[in-house]
């Protein structure tokens, strides 16, 4: 490692950055202990705003107790990729993880990959399109799918018991081209070119070891377009993510997001299980429905994001409230009511919108949601929620699930270690 590289790794945060971080963490601590839900949501909102709007060019640490990109406030863009491993042996797979780790740490820091970037007689080790760009809060989050444990790498005995392809849900219209994968990488960044650069270079490094199985790019409103950092809206025009648990509450995160040592297997302690669904939205059909129908579908007001019958986005959701005719104000088939259930299952949603051109057959837009959620346990959190939604959600008239995958995302790695070093 050169002196310059060491320096840049050790480079202290600027005073301005440090002040901001202390402010955010302090607020989180204060509110995390508070318990009043209104305050907590206020805290989350403020921290989101502080993180995403005022530090767009920041580098987030790649190494740590947990992988970055899970409770990290969502960046503006995502490039998601699932890979199939073609390497023959566990050694090959380990080598891939080590090579990916070195490249990822460099990319998160906004540095060039590898040694040869000005050598004339060799292809540059970094493809170059992110040269000179800021780190853009890039996070790279790695996971392994159920198919990795099929015996090719001697990992049969280490498969988490809950890591299975999701059961078929009512109405699923899954297309194999958007499903599964031995490995996944979720790259998020505040710049699309920076995010794409990461996936491209990881795929290049993987050549001979793993091949791309499917990819999906996604976006949400940028920090620049929404300086206040409000809850982002999905492509149906509604705020999405209001009910997310408070990521600054460490206790709550241990309960809902991070796999605990006692959950087993040991290699997943500090990791998290990811569910990915590619949900196409029938936007043409949606656009022909009345606002009243749209609001009844979500159970929220479109403009404010408030639960039906309330006025503030973060007002408590009263599922018992009835209108004068005795009907529930938040309809029984609304997305809000079914997603919430009895409140016993929570997941951390980290979704992005996608737009992938046209459906060649119909000429309609292929646009929708790259749904991603993180949870401590798929069987007890994501699956029961999705079962409820698949069965009764009024939103199903306007959506179709075309892709599906689950991954066990590793705990974080330390500098000197590598991604997946607890597994292989």
């Amino acid at each position: 490692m050169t002196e310059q590289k060491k320096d840049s790794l050790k480079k202290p945060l600027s005073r301005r950055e440090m002040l901001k971080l202390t402010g955010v963490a302090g607020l989180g601590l204060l509110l995390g202990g508070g318990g009043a839900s209104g305050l907590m949501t206020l805290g989350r909102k403020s921290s989101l705003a502080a993180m995403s709007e005022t530090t767009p060019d920041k580098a987030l640490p790649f190494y740590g107790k947990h992988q970055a990109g899970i409770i990290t406030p969502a960046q503006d863009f995502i490039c998601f990729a699932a890979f199939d491993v073609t390497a023959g042996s566990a050694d090959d797979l380990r080598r891939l993880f080590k090579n990916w780790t070195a490249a990822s740490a460099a990319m998160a820091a906004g540095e060039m990959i590898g040694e040869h970037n000005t050598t004339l007689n060799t292809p540059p080790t970094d493809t170059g399109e992110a040269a000179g760009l800021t780190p853009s809060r890039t996070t790279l989050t790695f996971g392994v799918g159920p198919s990795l444990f099929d015996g090719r790498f001697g990992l049969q005995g280490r498969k988490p018991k809950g890591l299975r392809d999701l059961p078929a849900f009512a109405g699923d219209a899954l297309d194999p081209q958007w499903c599964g994968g031995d490995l996944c990488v979720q790259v998020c960044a505040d710049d699309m070119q920076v995010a794409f650069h990461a996936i491209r270079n990881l795929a290049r490094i993987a050549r001979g070891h793993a091949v791309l199985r499917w990819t999906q790019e996604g976006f949400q409103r940028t920090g620049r377009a929404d300086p206040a950092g409000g809850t982002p809206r999905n492509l149906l025009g509604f705020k999405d993510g209001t009910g997310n648990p408070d990521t600054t509450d460490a206790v709550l995160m241990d309960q809902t997001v991070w796999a605990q040592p006692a959950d087993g297997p040991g290699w997943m302690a500090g990791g998290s299980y990811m569910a990915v669904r590619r949900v196409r939205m029938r936007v043409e059909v949606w656009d022909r429905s009345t606002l009243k129908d749209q609001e009844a579908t979500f159970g929220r007001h479109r403009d404010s994001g408030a639960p039906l019958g309330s006025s503030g986005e973060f007002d408590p959701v009263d599922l018992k409230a009835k209108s004068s005719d005795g009907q529930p104000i938040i309809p029984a088939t609304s997305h809000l009511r079914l997603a919430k259930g009895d409140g016993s299952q929570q997941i951390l949603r980290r979704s992005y919108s996608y737009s992938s051109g046209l459906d060649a057959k119909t000429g309609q837009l292929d646009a929708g949601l790259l749904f991603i959620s993180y949870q401590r346990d798929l069987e007890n959190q994501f699956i029961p929620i999705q079962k409820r939604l698949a069965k009764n959600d009024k939103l199903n008239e306007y959506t179709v699930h075309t892709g599906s995958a689950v991954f066990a995302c590793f705990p974080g790695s330390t500098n000197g270690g590598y991604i997946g070093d607890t597994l292989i």
Partner: protein
Amino acid sequence: MKKILALPAVVLATSVLLAACGNNETASDKQAGTSAAQSETQTSTETADAADQEATGSEYTTAVDGYRSFAIEQIDEFVKQTEKFTDAVKAGDLETAKSLYAPARMYYERIEPVAEALGDLDPNIDARDGDVEAADWRGFHRIEKALWEDKTTEGMTEFADTLLSDAKLLRAKVETMDIDASLMVTGAVELLNEVSSSKVTGEEERYSHTDLYDFAANVEGAREIYNLLKDDLAAKDKDLNQQIAERFDALEKELAPFKDGDGYVSYEKLKDEDVRKLSQNLDALAEPLSNMGQVLGV
């Protein structure tokens, strides 16, 4: 046929010199903001190394000589087989012409970078419809279209004659051509890039669907170059050498099921999944192969 024609030999020679200078890594290499100005400074301060690198380059004389004889041998055979093909075309023997088309082309496809380095010869022999102005279109693919799409040899006599004379011109020019290790190394990668951009997609042989002949020949040509340089490579980077060897084997294994007698099955027999696998195996090989030049210092 490549859309971007190869650089003239004089540019190649210059880039060998420049490339030699970049061999000493500096810390600035890692910095995102490394400017052109910086690399120019490196070049001028490290010219002393260039002499060393040139000396190293001459160590590959055996490989270069080996490649020259390989290329000549291939072109000799190419001229012979092309003559049989063009005779059949001129004789109006459609079926014989069709059966000789793809096998004759393989001798050309194995040494394509050599032809590309010789300027106009490659487009004259190997341009596809649309690669050149319609009025200038000639060569193999012009005749391919007649044989498979128009199902006739009519009107092809002139194209057949020109093709044969272009092939003979190639044979004459190769005698005087500068072949060096750098051309070999870039040539090997170019051969695989050719496969990647037009053969694996079925675009090269759009009428005859004999793309897999070209595919195999390009890979064989790249392997020949690698074989000539592999001992030198192994001495400098054992792991890279092993990786390249393994991936050549893997690609050949992937291609093997599509052999049919002395030739290959029609591209139309490939399933999407077959194409994807071939393409991925090709990329997996081309990536380490592209680092050969830096390791060899050429």
